[in-house]
């Protein structure tokens, strides 16, 4: 079943007086449960692709459907709900809130919806914090953790809303190779055990072996 479908998606950015194309007509389908990596050189358009799939930006042209819903037609409120309920994000720089402890950072996406009862919230946070192996660190602040541990927290935060799709933009770029492999292994394990669909982008060719499906992008076009 198709979870994400991009049809002839184009995206251009205005740079001064000229329009610079970032994506030049991308067609892509991602099925539920896939573990996909978008590989490409710096400036190839992979982050732009992830931003569009994650409803962080809108395409200049084309159609993007997530779970059968056309995101280009959604208003801001609907996009917020979609991001909160169906998409999880993992960022290259972890993007954790420094004044919150690990538990609170993970709980953050659940607070968008005020109607989720406290016991359910606690249950979900407890569950994901266990799955990323950080239970003993739940009262620590992000600056008390290593890079790998912080990215685990980010993964837990992405999973706590039980999304159908998790997007990761260069999730291992700030980690050493050993930790990077551990993070990828964790994502792969979560993909297998919890059937979470992962789409992540990387420029690191060495990670290819650990990924189920590879999409190569070059100059704003999918080439493979």
């Amino acid at each position, binding site marked *: 079943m198709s979870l994400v479908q991009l049809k002839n998606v184009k995206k251009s950015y205005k740079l001064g007086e000229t329009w610079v194309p970032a994506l030049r007509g991308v067609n892509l389908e991602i099925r539920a449960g896939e573990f996909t990596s978008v590989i490409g050189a710096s400036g190839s358009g992979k982050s732009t692709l992830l931003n569009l799939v994650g409803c962080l930006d809108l395409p200049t042209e084309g159609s993007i459907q997530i779970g059968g819903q056309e995101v280009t037609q959604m208003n801001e409120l609907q996009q917020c709900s979609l991001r*909160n309920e169906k998409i999880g994000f993992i960022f290259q720089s972890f*993007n954790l809130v420094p004044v919150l402890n690990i538990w*609170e950072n993970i709980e953050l996406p659940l607070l968008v919806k005020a109607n989720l009862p406290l016991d359910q919230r606690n249950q979900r946070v407890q569950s994901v914090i266990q799955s990323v192996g950080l239970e003993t660190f739940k009262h620590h602040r992000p600056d008390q953790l290593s890079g790998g541990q912080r990215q685990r927290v980010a993964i837990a935060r992405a999973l706590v809303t039980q999304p159908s799709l998790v997007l990761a933009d260069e999730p291992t770029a700030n980690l050493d190779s050993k930790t990077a492999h551990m993070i990828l292994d964790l994502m792969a394990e979560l993909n297998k055990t919890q059937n979470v669909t992962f789409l992540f982008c990387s420029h690191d060719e060495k990670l290819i072996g650990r990924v189920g499906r590879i999409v190569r992008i070059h100059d704003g076009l999918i080439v493979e």
Partner: protein
Amino acid sequence: MMWKMAFRNLFRNKRRTIATSAAVVAGFVGLTLLGGYIIYVEKGLKSHSVYLLNKGHISIFKKEGLQRYHTRPSLYQLTPDDRQSIQKVLVPFKSSIEWTGLAISGSGLISNGEKSVPFLAVGVDLESLNKSVNHPQVLKWARDFLTQDSLDFVSAIQKDPFSISITSRLGEMIQRKVPFKNLEPEKKNVQLAGMDIFGDLNAVDATLSVSFSTGSDMLEDSGLLAPFELLQNLYGTDGAQYLMIYLNNDLDVADLTNSINQVFQTQNLPFEAYPFNDPRISANYVGSMGFLYAMAGFFVFLICGAVALSIVNSLTMGILERTREIGTFRAIGYRPQQLSWLMTQESLWLSLICAVAGVIISFVIGTIVNSLNIKFSPPGISSEVQFALFVNFYLVLLIAFLFFVLIGFTSYFVTHYKLKMKIVDLLSDSGS
């Protein structure tokens, strides 16, 4: 948890938070003490005007009598029948009235047998004299306007109905120095001369008993306070110039004045009621308060501007540093309004902390200043008054509310622009 996070965010950049807090606390203290001082002055001037200058909260004159009494007293005085009609009108308002009194004023000459100098006299009934000088509002707020022996005037009148009270400067002009009780008996005797209401010359004997202060530098050379009946004798009348109404609660003044005037109009009675804060009744009170309110308005504007700019500066810096974090919040589903509210919560925490600190500091400063008992002579005021600073509970609440609104709105507008940015731009921001 959002409130908790907002609170913790204050400690991200402690130095900046302290600098902003210092500006807000200074503003809060400034407004609290300025407001407290104005309340103190207002209550002092009001008590002085209403009780010590015998204006009452409301004064009732014969129609146009306020303007014309001194030119045609026989026509514009309140006769005993008039006073009876007024008392009937006041019956429905009895629950609001503490007491009513009568006053008459006029001019003349006071003579020690060798020298005569002009006076401006007010004659007040004994009950009003007694209640006014002993009134809790006077003792609390206008004690500076009471002379050492002004509390003894009523007992002096009870002993000698010809007793009068004059200002110390008028006493000096007729070669009588305070305290008058120490004068030899024959030196206490003076004569008051004046034109009666029909224009004939009249004179009465009087006894110097105590001194008082008019409160006004201009009137201090001529002030004379006398029993109502004594001035009636001097001016050859059984009438009064005006009837004073003293209220239980001075918040009722405007409403009650309007109601009384309405009854006068509907019953076609030739009387007019004036509140004490009418400039024609208490020019000093109205003028002084007008100046103080204008000055306070200017300072409120300045202080609020400084506080708002401090908040704008602090928030702008904070938001610039947290641009990527805001982008993360947006990415995980937070709406701009929710983030705007988070930033506002931060500012509200700051306001709350500053308000608490501001109240404590204001209270400490007020206590120190009041204990120093600093006296000064304001322009136009005849006596020295204490420079006192009071922290008024309701004023603190009002200022805190003002700051909450000011800071809340400032936060909202500062964050509004940033939250309008595209999420990808927020996330890619380096925070510079």
